[in-house]
């Protein structure tokens, strides 16, 4: 029952935080202490007993609420916990309203539950709970641009989840179950049935709206850019990763390899193109998140265990360094009074030292340089890709990532000067920074021993360095080339049309496969 307690504790504390007039932070600290204990117990059980399924009530897993305690779920629960701690420390001295604590606890509790669930309808309910809490958190400061971004997010998410519900209906009608393991057996028994294609297309479209896939998640750049820094960190580091986990689980049920490869390349390429062109740093990070989701999808679609595990590992690494980047960039943008890159460079002497150091750590992590988080995960992912074409395209994505981050180099200079940062924030940065720095040993939980031993070699080091150098060179070449990108695609109407077009694309790809 430990996973259920983990979720129920957060929900109970979220209700308590509304009822109490003060002591919200103490409650949040208590929540983290309880979480740490319960997650520790789950890790011990995973290593001693192995993966198991906890069912609530006297029913079977197929008809009841069940929590699957597996390595994937536990890894993402750990990510949620790490980001929750960092956000708590980041907002330690902010005067937050009680409902912010309610929403934060609900969001983290729902992410815990979603990491453990293998039931499609439970996933639907939890996705909606995450949508509602994060939608309210995006508009927390009640600025008009935030309210507009969160409204767009809500409309597009709700539309996507309706498509997901259609997928649930089709899957249940034909397979008679919503549990992913039982559904996988039904699909394996009759793999060429048209209902499988239809339900897979509907489910993938619905989840893709939540997971940050470019054609489907056009709400993401404005929501991530306009939200308060702590919320952006949670959205980019955690919320869209829940969609990624569900896509991973769906890719184990349905034959999605080609579909995920195509969606992955489209997402990675378009995300990078927009990230290279934008000069607003939070918007750039948001587009970069899209491009990295594409990178993950390529890993899921590559069809080997190493690539799939490496992609999951990279999802966790990305959650950590993108969370840190949004927190640090949020602080320096507040100090500079703007998130325009030129303005930030002008005011860089005002930035606290901790921010500069953490910006360096997060950028090294995202660029995939050893020994940081991105390197470990990228090396495992790329070791699992056997097709030369796919490998070349993945290398191109790595070069593009370096090109998009080359514009941050002026911000990273002179890390030793500047004022001191508030202590809780510095501790929060240090917490995530340490996770990025020591990710290589941490990721051994997810990566099986044989893959681990064959992955880390001199070639991986050289590839990582070459990608960064090439990326910087590409940025120098493109820096002064005048080209404009369409911005209207992010409006509600165009974004909805893109979701429908994306559904047709996914359905066609699945039917052709």
């Amino acid at each position, binding site marked *: 029952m430990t996973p259920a307690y983990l979720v129920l504790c957060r929900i109970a504390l979220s209700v308590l935080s509304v009822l109490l007039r003060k002591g919200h932070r103490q409650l949040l600290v208590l929540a983290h202490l309880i979480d740490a204990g319960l997650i520790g117990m789950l890790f011990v059980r995973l290593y001693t007993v192995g993966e198991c399924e906890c069912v609530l009530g006297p029913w079977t897993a197929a008809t009841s609420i069940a929590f699957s305690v597996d390595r994937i779920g536990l890894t993402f629960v750990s990510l949620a916990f790490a980001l929750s701690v960092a956000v708590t420390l980041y907002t330690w001295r902010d005067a937050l309203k009680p409902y912010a604590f309610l929403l934060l606890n609900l969001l983290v509790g729902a992410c815990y539950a979603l990491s453990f669930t293998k039931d499609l309808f439970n996933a639907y309910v939890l996705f909606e709970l995450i949508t509602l809490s994060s939608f309210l958190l995006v508009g927390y400061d009640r600025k008009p641009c935030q309210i507009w971004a969160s409204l767009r997010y809500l409309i597009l998410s709700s539309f996507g989840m*309706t498509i997901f519900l*259609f997928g649930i*209906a089709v899957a249940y009608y034909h397979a008679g179950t919503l549990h992913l393991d039982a559904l996988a057996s039904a699909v394996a028994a009759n793999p060429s049935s048209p209902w499988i294609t239809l339900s897979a297309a509907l489910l993938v479209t619905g989840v893709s709206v939540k997971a940050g896939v470019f054609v489907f998640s056009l709400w993401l750049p404005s929501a991530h850019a306009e939200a308060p820094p702590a919320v952006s960190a949670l959205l980019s580091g955690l919320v869209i990763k829940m969609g990624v986990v569900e896509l991973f689980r769906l890719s184990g049920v349905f034959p999605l390899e080609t579909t995920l490869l195509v969606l992955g390349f489209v997402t990675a390429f378009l995300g990078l193109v927009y990230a290279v062109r934008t000069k607003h740093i939070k918007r750039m990070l948001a587009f970069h998140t899209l491009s990295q989701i594409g990178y993950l999808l390529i890993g899921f679609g590559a069809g080997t265990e190493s690539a799939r595990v490496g992609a999951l590992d990279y999802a966790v690494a990305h959650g950590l360094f993108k969370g840190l980047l949004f927190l640090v960039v949020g602080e320096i943008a507040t100090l500079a009074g703007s998130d325009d890159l030129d303005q930030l460079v002008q005011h860089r002497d005002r930035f606290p030292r901790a921010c500069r150091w953490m910006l360096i750590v997060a950028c090294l992590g995202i660029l995939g340089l050893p020994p940081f988080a991105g390197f470990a995960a990228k090396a495992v992912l790329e070791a699992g890709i056997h097709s030369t074409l796919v490998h070349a395209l993945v290398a191109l994505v790595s070069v593009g990532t370096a090109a998009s981050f080359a514009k941050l180099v002026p911000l990273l200079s002179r890390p030793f000067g500047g004022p001191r940062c508030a202590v809780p924030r510095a501790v929060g940065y240090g917490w995530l920074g340490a996770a990025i720095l020591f990710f290589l040993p941490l990721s051994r939980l997810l990566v099986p021993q044989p893959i681990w031993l064959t992955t880390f070699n001199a070639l991986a080091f050289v590839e990582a360095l070459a990608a960064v150098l090439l990326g910087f060179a590409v940025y120098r070449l493109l820096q002064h080339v005048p080209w404009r990108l369409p911005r209207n695609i992010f409006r509600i109407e165009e974004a909805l049309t893109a979701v429908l077009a994306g559904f047709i694309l996914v359905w066609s790809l699945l039917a052709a496969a």
Partner: protein
Amino acid sequence: MNGSIGIIVAISLFGVGTLGLILRRDLVIKLLALGLVNTSAILCLLSLDSQATSAPPLLVPAYTQQMIDPLPQALVLSAIVINFAILALALVFVMRIVEQYHTLDPQRVEHEVEEERR
């Protein structure tokens, strides 16, 4: 209701709702259209397993017919509550938008937001 009629109605509702979401330039009508889209999925979930001859899923000895599957009926209750919450919160946010920009036209709101950002 016959299952196939329910599915046809559900798909039609989804089409009408989606068209409303894409074509109408009024935020309140867009939210009403979103409500239609949400309802269409609920109707689809209920209709897929229903037949005109099936009995309600009640454990009453008087019913001798085959009962319809009760699980979709349990599922849609959650979906209805969620959709209600989404529409209610979205309407509150639309009210805030109208207070700020005095318009329900999403493209004008978009324009105003872009202007503010500059």
